């Protein structure tokens, strides 16, 4: 019998790193403010005290340097888990991620690898303005050689993060910061809820893993397939419940590798598909999902595939809830698909 305890997503992520640092002496954690202080979101709290400064350390404020150093540490034989404090800050590290970490195995024919897991809080809903709200996952899914993983519950966050750390390929692990402390249904003017009592907040205290590339059926149903990930899983669940619709909600969990089998089986069953993400629309990951569904399920579709996404604008501070793909916009899209 595995011991479980209630954790919010931050605690689950912290526990994943703790478990891995205990099991594997090559795992190191690094980033801005992650050491003594334990990170601006407390995700690394207590790790330096437990594992020492050689394994958990603060870094200079240079994302290019953080990822470049992590590539070198990986080449040495360590398994770095760098944190980029906000996904919006990841761009200075793009060359090291896209041209170096993601290509190292390929260009050296396996002589050198970059087994790093880049943790970074992403997404909006916290009044973070344009520099603390972005969802840049589509930049990474577009690049060969890098995996992109996004959890939506504490249970998944820990199991996926352990799998990512153990993985020998570089992985971007985007943490939906709006749901760090509790699930968010998209009703921004109602009181925030915590993870307390949520079934997926009962998390094993020890080691377990959720394989990368396996989606989760968050709700089984037959009327419509909704593909989503991260915070949007909870917004979609709430909207579907309000409508009383028998929708199938697929929480993708991993964008690369993608669980195409689960997606294909679901859409072929329901004949309708809605894609929801917070990231900007044009060339967003939804475009790839739409193409995959169209290529594989065209003859099973009863209605055009719809997307609800962030708009192609920067994330506006005061107009956050007009930008955020909330229940109103999702409901309208569902109604459109279902009326055909």
């Amino acid at each position: 019998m595995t011991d479980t305890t209630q954790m919010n997503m931050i605690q689950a992520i912290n526990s994943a790193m703790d478990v891995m640092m205990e099991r594997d002496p090559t795992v190191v954690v690094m980033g801005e403010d992650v050491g003594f202080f334990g990170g601006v979101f407390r995700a690394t709290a207590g790790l330096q005290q437990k594992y020492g400064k050689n394994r958990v350390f603060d870094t200079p404020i240079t994302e290019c340097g953080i990822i470049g150093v992590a590539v070198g540490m990986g080449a040495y034989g360590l398994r770095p888990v760098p944190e980029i404090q906000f996904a919006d800050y990841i761009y200075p590290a793009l060359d090291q991620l896209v041209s170096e970490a993601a290509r190292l195995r390929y260009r050296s024919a396996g002589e050198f690898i970059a087994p790093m897991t880049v943790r970074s809080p992403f997404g909006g809903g916290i009044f973070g303005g344009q520099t603390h709200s972005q969802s840049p996952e589509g930049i990474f899914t577009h690049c060969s050689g890098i995996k992109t993983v996004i959890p939506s519950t504490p249970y998944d966050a820990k199991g996926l993060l352990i799998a990512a750390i153990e993985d020998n390929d570089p992985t971007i692990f985007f943490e939906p910061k709006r749901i760090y402390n509790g699930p968010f249904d998209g009703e921004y003017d109602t009181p925030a809820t915590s993870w307390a009592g949520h079934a997926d907040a009962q998390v094993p205290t020890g080691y377990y893993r959720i394989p990368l590339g396996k989606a989760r059926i968050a709700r089984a149903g037959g009327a419509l397939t909704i593909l989503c990930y991260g915070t949007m899983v909870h917004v979609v669940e709430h909207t579907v419940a309000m409508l009383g619709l028998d929708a199938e909600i697929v929480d993708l969990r991993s964008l690369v590798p993608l669980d195409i089998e689960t997606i294909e089986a679901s859409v072929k069953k329901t004949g309708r598909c809605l894609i929801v993400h917070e990231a900007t629309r044009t060339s967003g990951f939804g475009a790839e999902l739409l193409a995959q569904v169209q290529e594989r399920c065209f003859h099973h579709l009863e209605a055009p595939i719809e997307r609800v996404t962030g708009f192609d604008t920067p994330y506006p501070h005061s107009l956050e809830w007009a930008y955020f793909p909330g229940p109103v916009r999702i409901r309208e899209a569902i109604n459109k698909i279902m009326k055909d």
Partner: protein
Amino acid sequence: MTDPHDSARLQGEAGRNLPPLRLHVPEPPARPGESADFTHFDIPAADAAPRPDETAQPATMRDMAYGLVRVLDENGAAVGQWNPNLPPETLLRMLRAMALTRAFDGRMFRAQRQGKTSFYMKSTGEEAVSIGAALALHRDDMCFPSYRQQGILIARDWPIIDMMNQIYSNKGDRLKGRQLPIMYSAREAGFFSISGNLTTQYPQAVGWAMASAARGDTRIAATWCGEGSTAEGDFHSACTFASVYRAPVIMNVVNNQWAISSFSGFAGAEATTFAARAVGYGIAGLRVDGNDVLAVYAATRWAADRARANAGPTLIEHFTYRVEGHSTSDDPTAYRSAEESSLWPLGDPIARLKQHCIGLGIWDEDRHAAMDKELAEMVRDAAREAEKNGILGHGLHHPMESMFEDVFEEMPWHLKEQQQQMLDEWKAAGL
């Protein structure tokens, strides 16, 4: 609405009676058709540079970033505090490695011109930078080179046929034909995969060195970049990390004065030296005669001993000259004086070490000529062997489906699907 360029406002500003601002865009001293002029380069005497203790505080040795560490004087004698007093066998090994590098470069450059490969980059005139350093490091110290350090592999006795297979991108290429020629990777030789994106290797080397220190290892790291790419953010990120964690790393800037057609002024050389970048970061900086292999060796040993003593990183500027074009795709006669190379006052690294060895009585012209002939034959024979594995574009490449391997450790479904689609398309086309 108010016009921000309102003329009345501009007139008001002009009334301040200051000279108009002007932009300084650097210009090299000589362009094609003009005489090269190195008279502004005041070369210190070979025995002028003091040699600080390896554990000296950076603040006590800032002058080293503006001077020039030299060992070989104008007559080929080894002089001064930096003379590493190497035994004859090491001197001759250096000489041979530099000569082999030059012979290799000559052969591979011609192979590109003969259409046997797409691209090549010579290191002519810069051989000492790689070979002096490689021989001063331990074999298991990790090198993070740029694209002009083929001399490291040669100094570490890596088989030249393996390098040629890579250049030909043939079926013998361990890198499966995936990389542009000369972007070697040789883990067994402590030679990190070359990127082609500039100076990305700098923070990687620092990270490797930090890992070695964190694990209580004994190995250190060394890295190289050109003076032009010291302008990249990666360079400065690396210097910051190296300084903060006192990483056991040697950061080499090969100042060959030209970044394709941009002279070193576009990287800041008009304002200060490249070694002086170390001063701002509070790390040890040395400026070295990069065409003096004994000086390169001595500076590298000093920096390696410093790193091994946990006294921190060193930034070394190797002052040299890029004798050839940037690559086979470049024609330097279009942008610089043809005289520069022959007038470069620090001379040729091979000629200088040869003169030194002859002066010691351990070498002579006949032996040198015989060595050059032997190396030319060796390179020719290796090239012929490598060409049996194929040359670029002549079919003897790795199998097409290998394109999809090593993107990830395990091939995911979407790559398998694309791989199968490609094979099906070729089959359907009857190819």
